[in-house]
């Protein structure tokens, strides 16, 4: 059972989209929490802060970074870390999370979550960066497992072992993206259940669920793309139930960033997750 100080309620949450600001404030839907991408709110003023401030008064908040580049070979961007600190100060989110990935090289920002070689030098660097984040922000963070399309010949760890070691060394928690587990398992011919069971599930502070796109590679094999642009797949719902059986109820985000449907469609997916969380609550 989760015993880390991550304060999101064990309910389903939704990504807060600017298109839904007014509807959320107007109808005050029964949603466990909202999650925002930190970088979208790194602006001086205007409607984004206006609406997030009002919504924060009524809902728990998860601040999810997509630009810190924790896996960078170079140092972390201290300016960016300062901006994150200011947002955390302003909105007092219940959770802050980032990715096991890199997105910047030197001054160049690539706007994608890029894969890492799982070897000892990478492990040391990622742990140093997470230590720096947690000491600067004065709070533990959650680290999200990635969706990947390629592997590195240099890797000496399995991804689940690598993540377990990062968590053991830094004391951060796990943001378990179940869609990413499924996407990576298909793309690398792995067993998603074995992957999940190899993770330190007692450190999970949040779960992400999302949809993927289907493609094929040069051999015509299934290649799944984590595009956050579709409803959650049956296989991912099934994996989610497998996770909940082991963790008990955990705050669960329905992630949708592309092909955005009406708020009611996302709310229906949140209700589906809430039902499974309710069931997990009854069992635990």
């Amino acid at each position: 059972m989760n015993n880390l100080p991550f304060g999101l309620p064990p309910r389903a949450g939704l990504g807060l989209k600017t298109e839904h600001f007014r509807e959320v404030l107007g109808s005050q839907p029964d949603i466990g929490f909202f999650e925002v991408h930190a970088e979208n709110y790194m602006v001086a003023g205007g409607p984004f802060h206006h609406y997030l401030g009002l919504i924060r008064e009524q809902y728990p908040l998860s601040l999810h970074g997509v630009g810190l580049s924790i896996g960078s070979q170079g140092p972390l961007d201290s300016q960016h870390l300062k901006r994150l600190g200011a947002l955390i100060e302003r909105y007092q989110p219940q959770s802050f999370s980032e990715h096991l990935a890199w997105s910047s090289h030197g001054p160049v920002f690539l706007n994608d979550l890029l894969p890492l070689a799982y070897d000892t030098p990478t492990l040391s660097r990622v742990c140093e960066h997470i230590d720096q984040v947690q000491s600067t922000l004065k709070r533990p963070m959650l680290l999200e497992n990635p969706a990947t399309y390629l592997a590195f010949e240099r890797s000496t760890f399995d991804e689940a072992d690598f993540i377990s070691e990062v968590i053991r060394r830094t004391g951060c928690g796990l943001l378990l993206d179940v869609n990413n587990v499924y996407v990576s398992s298909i793309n690398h011919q792995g067993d998603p259940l074995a992957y999940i069971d190899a993770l330190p599930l007692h450190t999970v502070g949040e779960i992400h669920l999302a949809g993927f796109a289907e493609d094929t590679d040069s051999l015509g094999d299934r290649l799944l793309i984590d595009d956050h642009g579709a409803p959650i797949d049956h296989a991912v719902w099934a994996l989610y139930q497998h996770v909940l059986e082991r963790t008990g109820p955990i705050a669960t985000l329905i992630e949708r960033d592309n092909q955005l449907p009406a708020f009611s469609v996302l709310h229906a997916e949140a209700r589906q997750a809430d039902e499974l969380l309710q069931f997990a609550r009854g069992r635990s």
Partner: protein
Amino acid sequence: MSTQAAFAAALLDPRLNCPKGLFSTNGADPDSRFAVYRNNVQSSLINALAHSYPVVGQLVGDEFFRAMAAIYLLGNAPQSPLIKDYGHDFADFIQSFEPAGSVPYLADVARLERLRTLAYHAADAQPLSPEQIGATLADPQTLSELTVELHPSLKLLTSAFAVVSIWAAHQHNSTLAGIDLDHGQHALILRNGLDVEVFVIEPGASAFIQNLQNGQPLIQAAESAPAFDLGQTLAQLISHNAITHLHHNKVSP
């Protein structure tokens, strides 16, 4: 070259091959897998530009816009994780992009869209009420030393084209028919409450507002601008909540 340096270079330049040391578990060609990352990077950045410059996109069509954005991207990778700032100099690129030369007003439309984005996210500031402003302006003794502080979102754009009319026509699906495209316009852009507003103002009013932004006292700012209707311009600034402070700059004896 480090692994990430090679990876980053190949993401940004489609002419480069997938970096060495990568493989697919099923034995598939790593290039076909690397293409997913490259496509994510390229399409997300082009989408970011399309989101920031919707009217530029409508003016040239989606296919041309995406081709132009892909060329911009080759020489202008983002330098910050704040992706809203990506393409802040896109107008300058468009200005010198020869294939867009047949749409001479395109760069100024991009400038207007960029100023709207800046105004949307600019710092908040409490405007003075018409009553507060009226009371201050009623004292002729202090008028000559009065400086006017304007809302941080307030921006000006001077164009040799009918840039506001062209932009406005794309807000409600109307055409450019009837617009004298070569009729230069002075644009005033500001955020009033939560909404960004765009106006055409007189050339003298634009110079006056520029003088105010440079810190000139009210009377001097008006007198050093070409002829314009001061009363109407002040009324417009007041009614759109653009005046945030009035200062008396008393000259020491």
